[in-house]
């Protein structure tokens, strides 16, 4: 038992958890034919079958029940703020499963030359708004209201002492839906993590249907016709948003340190997190000279790296790895698409740089409030 808890604690270390997610993610949601081949060869497509739904839900419930025996796990999971996130894990999995299941079913139907499941055969498929729709909605409304009442009575809102600007609770957590943002704020300057990146990620996710002008697979669930779009959206949604919320809820503890789900929230946990900027890496550690006084000279390496990342990487990819995509999409579409993707990718890249090398900012100009 203790051994299992330690295993979970070490598996949920951010480096391991996120690396594992990254590696496995594109085999679960294959963005290209190559990934799709392995997706099927590794039998991951069974995940979107009925048996997998049952098994995974049973395992998840069993894990939660097992965890509730542990006082530290119980304290985190049963905190009234965190109960929605425990529910969110089940709900996100269920609805992802539901749509993927439907998509795979339709893909098979299309392959067999049959009409898709959502095929609308007028006027035989016609239903009446009343009672067919409104009645169901009404019952849902009543059931859900009853559920919300029971929930609000059963779990008291954690009212704390009156707000005091000189005393921030430790840890201070944002509302659960902002915990992904709060996690981003650890790695970026506030204006980047709070304004630029979230807007770009949301705009980017919304723009995906406009990048993909493939007319097939429109109007019904399908995966085969929209591999790249769905994989990209799911990456932005499940990894860059939901996973960060789960990490922020369950794995962030006092002093905003990382804690495993079975680990005691020790506010004196010592972690060496001394951060170094890129300029300090280069001038102090590599060249063994002090930082130059001139800001431009000091930050030239970071500026070059960022310029290279945004100006050289997209055309390079268009010539090599993403050549087919570039030819299919055209210059304008490709440029927008790739800039959105590599901007979103700066988030995981910076998370890794922080975890592995304690790198703080690639460009650090605090004199002019510009840090990246």
């Amino acid at each position, binding site marked *: 038992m203790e051994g299992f808890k330690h295993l979970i604690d070490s598996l949920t270390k951010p480096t391991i958890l996120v690396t594992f997610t990254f590696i496995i993610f594109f085999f679960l949601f294959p963005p290209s034919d190559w990934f799709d081949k392995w997706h099927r060869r590794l039998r991951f497509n069974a995940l979107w079958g009925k048996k997998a739904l049952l098994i995974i839900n049973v395992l998840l419930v069993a894990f939660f029940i097992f965890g509730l025996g542990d006082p530290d796990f119980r304290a985190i999971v049963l905190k009234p703020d965190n109960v929605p996130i425990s529910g969110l894990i089940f709900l996100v999995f269920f609805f992802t499963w539901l749509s993927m299941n439907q998509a795979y079913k339709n893909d098979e139907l299309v392959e067999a030359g049959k009409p898709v499941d959502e095929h609308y055969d007028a006027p035989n498929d016609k239903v009446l708004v009343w009672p067919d729709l409104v009645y169901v909605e009404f019952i849902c409304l009543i059931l859900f209201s009853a559920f919300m009442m029971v929930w609000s009575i059963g779990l008291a809102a954690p009212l704390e002492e009156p707000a*005091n*600007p*000189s*005393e*921030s*609770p*430790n*840890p*201070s957590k944002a509302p659960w839906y902002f915990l992904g943002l*709060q996690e981003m*704020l*650890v*790695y*970026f*300057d*506030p204006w980047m993590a709070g304004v630029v990146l979230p807007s770009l990620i949301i705009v980017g996710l919304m723009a995906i249907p406009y990048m993909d002008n493939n007319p097939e697979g429109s109007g019904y669930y399908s995966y085969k016709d929209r591999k790249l779009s769905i994989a990209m959206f799911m990456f932005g949604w499940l990894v860059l948003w939901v996973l960060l919320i789960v990490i922020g809820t369950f794995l962030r503890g*006092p*002093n*905003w*340190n990382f804690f495993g789900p079975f680990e005691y929230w020790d506010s*004196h946990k*010592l972690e060496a*997190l*001394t*951060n170094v900027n890129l300029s300090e890496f280069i001038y102090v550690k590599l060249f063994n000279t002090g930082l130059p006084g001139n800001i431009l000279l000091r930050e030239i390496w970071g500026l070059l790296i960022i310029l290279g990342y945004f100006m050289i990487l997209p055309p390079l990819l268009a010539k090599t790895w993403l050549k087919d995509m570039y030819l299919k999409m055209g210059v304008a579409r490709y440029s927008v698409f790739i800039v959105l993707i590599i901007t979103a990718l700066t988030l995981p890249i910076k998370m890794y740089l922080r975890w592995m090398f304690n790198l*703080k*900012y690639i460009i*650090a100009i*605090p*004199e002019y*409030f510009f*840090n990246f």
Partner: protein
Amino acid sequence: MPDANKKKTATIKPVSPPPAALSQADDNTQVTRRSFFSWLSLGWLAFVAATGGFFTMMLRFFFPNVLFEPVQTFRAGYPEDYEAGEVDLRWKAKYATWIIRNDEGIYALSTTCTHLGCTPNWLVAEQKFKCPCHGSGFRKTGINFEGPAPRPLERFRIVLADDGQIVIDKTKKYQQEKGQWGDPEAFLKV
């Protein structure tokens, strides 16, 4: 409306007579195209004036008659009240200031984290200020060394009054990244 304009358009006659119902309505209510636009302009003017007045009233609320702002300058006792090597928390709640004495003198640190403005905690065992919001850490001097805070904590103006008490003026801030910590009033030599 200018008369010349009126004359010019008054002579123009429609090619075909207007439908009976329309001309009848014209006679009864006397709404012509010209008067319609006058009324429209009047309506818009009234609308703009009303909303403008409303927003002016709203704007007034940004400038209250009385401002309950905490005192920005305070006396913090005598230098002897502070022990060397200690971070003093007694003014944290009231004035959001840490007073720290080292071997050379005393300085006053702002308790506002330079990342997003939470209040860090002083951890004695680790000898650092640690912010509970995003994990920024600051050394006793106020220098940022871990987490996302982009710059060191700010220091306040600190001087001795005539009676020998320390006076801390929070309206004047000294930022390390601008090279202001060398200022004689950013540090009280004792």
